[in-house]
């Protein structure tokens, strides 16, 4: 076979040739299933732009993105931080940004990694399928940008900023963890927005029934709301874990456009929620795919040894896992763990040891590595993937250790290491670290004093004595108060005993 390219310069012809070769391997040999690809070549300046807006190609305007941009730019200019070689967007068609500074080998790697690895994961993983709408996201982003811009024109930049600040603070509390979101098209979304706006202006809200002389029909029923335009029963269904959703629907202090802005922030938070849940698997899948593809390109003689060594150099630095006592250590490297686990699944499927047969009787030696992996990529997220597929071999390779940090003791106790009895412990413990719903504090709206001063009660369920950070908690609480308009109380309650540990209040001004 002739080489696809030589040297490090790239051009559009080479890009096309390489794409075709990569596609043939990805679809033909690895059996991937991807959205149509759209590759966009950008400069480093544009890459920084894309960074600052969470990698999205268009987004409403807010100072925090300016801050991110200034920070990244400073770090980049001073050489503290390199830029990613690519950014990929979960959309249909799947958009991958590649940088013009990359060498041809890096472009090849990026095509394999993003346009096939990430793309396949976005299209097939059940979390993404269930929670995101790849076809609608770009339209929705355009809609939200225009909507926020119109609000800025009409209401002033400061007013919009105040709402966005408050809503951003609650982003992590603005996702539905268990309910499934219905898919809506942009047209429906627009129609609903218009409907909501007109409706909100004359909205009936359960809180207003406390004002004397309000709707008799309601007070007669003792606070039960009448059927709404939305879905028939917009009642205060408490407890509610999605704070943004609750405030959007029920806050007595918000105007129509403010609710819509909260909704935009909430929908984007929900859009990113699957990415937070599958970060390690997503990167692992993409890394595994680019590794396979690059190897096959090299085996077939489509790229030369120089290019392959350049690839290996980049690949190994991406999957380096510094030890915990290394100054470079900053948590588990999702690329390293993901790639190691995926490669291990392949090994178990094709060349299992006795240990593997004991631990993974259903997949060991089934001979179909890619089929097994495709199944894994479709059905798991980080937490469940670790819980079920972290093998003793990977634990040994990483020298994983589990420490017990008890608040009242001046030392960590080593609770498990990579030995027979430790594997299961370590596995369960690491899986919990990947459970976003556990990493984020569990906060719910548990009560509203409808008859009195409209005080809102939030409850943080404290697990294992892990309390909220006090400084950020007070500031965030002030934002909740801004959105609710009346006094807000946050109680920290022990999840097991139910004892109230503390109570903070942001008073109505």
């Amino acid at each position: 076979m002739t080489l696809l390219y030589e040297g490090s310069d790239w051009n559009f012809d080479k890009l096309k040739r390489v794409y075709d070769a990569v596609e043939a391997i990805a679809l033909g040999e690895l059996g991937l299933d991807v959205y149509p690809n759209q590759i966009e070549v950008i400069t480093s300046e544009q890459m920084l732009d894309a960074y600052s807006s969470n990698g999205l190609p268009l987004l409403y305007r807010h100072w925090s993105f300016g801050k991110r941009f200034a920070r990244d730019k400073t770090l980049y200019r001073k050489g503290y931080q390199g830029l990613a070689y690519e950014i990929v967007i979960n959309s249909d068609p799947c958009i991958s940004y590649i940088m013009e500074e990359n060498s041809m080998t890096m472009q090849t790697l990026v095509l394999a990694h993003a346009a096939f690895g990430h793309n396949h994961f976005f299209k097939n993983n059940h979390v993404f399928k269930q929670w995101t709408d790849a076809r609608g996201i770009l339209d929705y982003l355009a809609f939200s940008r225009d909507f926020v811009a119109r609000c800025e024109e009409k209401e002033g930049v400061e007013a919009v900023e105040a709402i966005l600040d408050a809503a951003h603070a609650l982003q992590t509390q603005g996702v539905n963890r268990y309910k499934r979101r219905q898919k809506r098209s942009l047209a429906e979304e627009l129609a609903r927005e218009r409907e909501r706006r007109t409706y909100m202006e004359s909205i009936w809200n359960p809180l207003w029934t406390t004002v004397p002389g309000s709707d008799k029909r309601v007070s007669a029923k003792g606070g039960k709301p009448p059927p709404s335009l939305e879905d028939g029963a917009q009642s205060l269904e408490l407890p509610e874990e999605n704070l943004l959703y609750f405030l959007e629907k029920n806050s007595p202090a918000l105007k129509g456009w403010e609710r819509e802005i909260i909704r935009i922030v909430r929908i984007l938070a929900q859009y990113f929620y699957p990415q937070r849940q599958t970060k390690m698997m997503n990167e692992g899948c993409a890394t595994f795919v680019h590794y396979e593809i690059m190897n096959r390109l090299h085996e077939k003689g489509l790229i030369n040894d120089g290019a392959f060594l350049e690839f290996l150099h980049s690949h190994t630095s991406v999957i380096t896992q510094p030890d915990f006592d290394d100054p470079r250590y900053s948590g588990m490297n999702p690329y390293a763990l993901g790639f190691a686990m995926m490669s291990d699944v392949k090994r178990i499927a094709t060349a299992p040891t006795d240990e593997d047969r004991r631990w993974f009787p259903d997949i060991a030696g089934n001979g179909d590595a890619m089929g097994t992996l495709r199944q894994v990529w479709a059905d798991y997220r980080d937490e469940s993937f670790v819980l079920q597929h972290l093998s003793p071999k990977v634990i040994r390779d990483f020298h994983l250790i589990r420490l017990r940090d008890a608040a009242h003791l001046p030392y960590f106790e080593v609770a498990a290491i990579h030995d027979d009895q430790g594997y299961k412990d370590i596995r369960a413990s690491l899986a919990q670290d990947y459970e976003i719903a556990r990493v984020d504090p569990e906060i719910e709206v548990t009560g509203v004093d409808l008859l009195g001063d409209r005080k809102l009660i939030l409850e943080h369920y404290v697990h294992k004595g892990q309390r909220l950070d006090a400084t950020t908690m007070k500031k965030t609480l002030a934002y909740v108060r801004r959105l609710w308009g009346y006094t807000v109380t946050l109680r920290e309650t022990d999840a097991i005993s139910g004892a109230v540990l503390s109570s903070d209040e942001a008073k109505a001004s």
Partner: protein
Amino acid sequence: MNVIDRRLNPTGKSLPNRQRLLRRLKAQVREAVARSISGRKIADISADTEVQVPVDGIGEPFFRKGAGGDRDIVLPGNKKYVKGDRIAKPTKGDGDGGGQASDSGEGEDAFTFTLSRDEFLDVFFEDLELPDMVKRQLKQSTASVPARAGFSVSGSPQSVDVTRTMRRGMARRLAMRRPTVKDLDELKKRLAEAEAAGDSDSVAKLTEELTQLRRRVGAIPWIDPVDVRYRRFEQRPQPIAQAVMFCLMDVSGSMNEHMKDLAKRFFMLLYLFLQRRYEAVEVVFIRHTHEAREVDEETFFGSPETGGTLVSSALSMAADVTAARFPVDSWNIYFAQASDGDNMSTDRHRVAETMTNALLPACQYFAYLEVGDPHSDSWDGSESASELWRTYQKLTGPGVPLAMRRATTAAEIFEVFRDLFARDAVG
């Protein structure tokens, strides 16, 4: 697959976000600019500047778990520990070292970014309360005018040179023997005559000739693209020359830090103005107590000195320097003097003499800024005018390039330059 080249798309997509950030950080940025004014040299005024911003102005809080509580931590790279070992916890401040929430916590340290020249000047001007027109003038880094520079074969339609184009067209038509209207008319007349005479041979010949002529007319255009000439313009910098700016300052004990800061902004503003107008601007620093010294910039604003006050010493020194190094015929000379107005009354004559005989005839502009303390109310009306003020006031008159002004805050400085900028706007 679809490859799109986005490299030519406009960059700076996050500029509006940056403006929002700067607006939010206004107080911090102003403070940083003030700090940087006192720290930087006059001639560096238009460089980019780095701004340190404490994080509380732009923190993005969210509910997150703090340290404390019981947890399990999984770490890679165990080398020596076995089950049951105890590891001392790191001392407070190192954090708990766990993976919990650390990936979502933003860096909490102060955060640095660079203000561009324009952004810096915006803030600088804001304190000075400059009129918008003046701001625009000062921010233009180079001034240039379009000047005629011959002709070119390409250009925009409005710069077609009609005369030249027509002349070339005519030359070409003559050279290629394009039949004129007269030729055609004559042939038509002969054809009509021949038809009238019934001479069928010559009719056929003439008709043939006429068709040929017409074909020739069609083939050789009246105006061809090769004829078209455009007027060409070049951007030429405005007539430039060199200028020297004398900073004169009283450094006797009565000048406090506030006054010196005002003086510095006053010199900076003049420098910006000169820098825009002249390609090369020299700055000479002369400070004086009862005697004058030419010094470098650090000494000028820095070390304090004690002594009496003799303004004439600085003026005559400036006159000497001018005579020795900056001949009037090749330098534009600007004086900027800042003082609290104190002077020995016996010095009055010598000041007036040096001004009228040496400095005012030589200079383009003499700006005198009398700086005061906002807290002292000792001088507010003309009855309490300072010694130097009274001396200078006698010198003013139509046509004398002397402007004087009192300032207690930065916003009042610009008035002393009003004439200078007004003149520039007209010219």
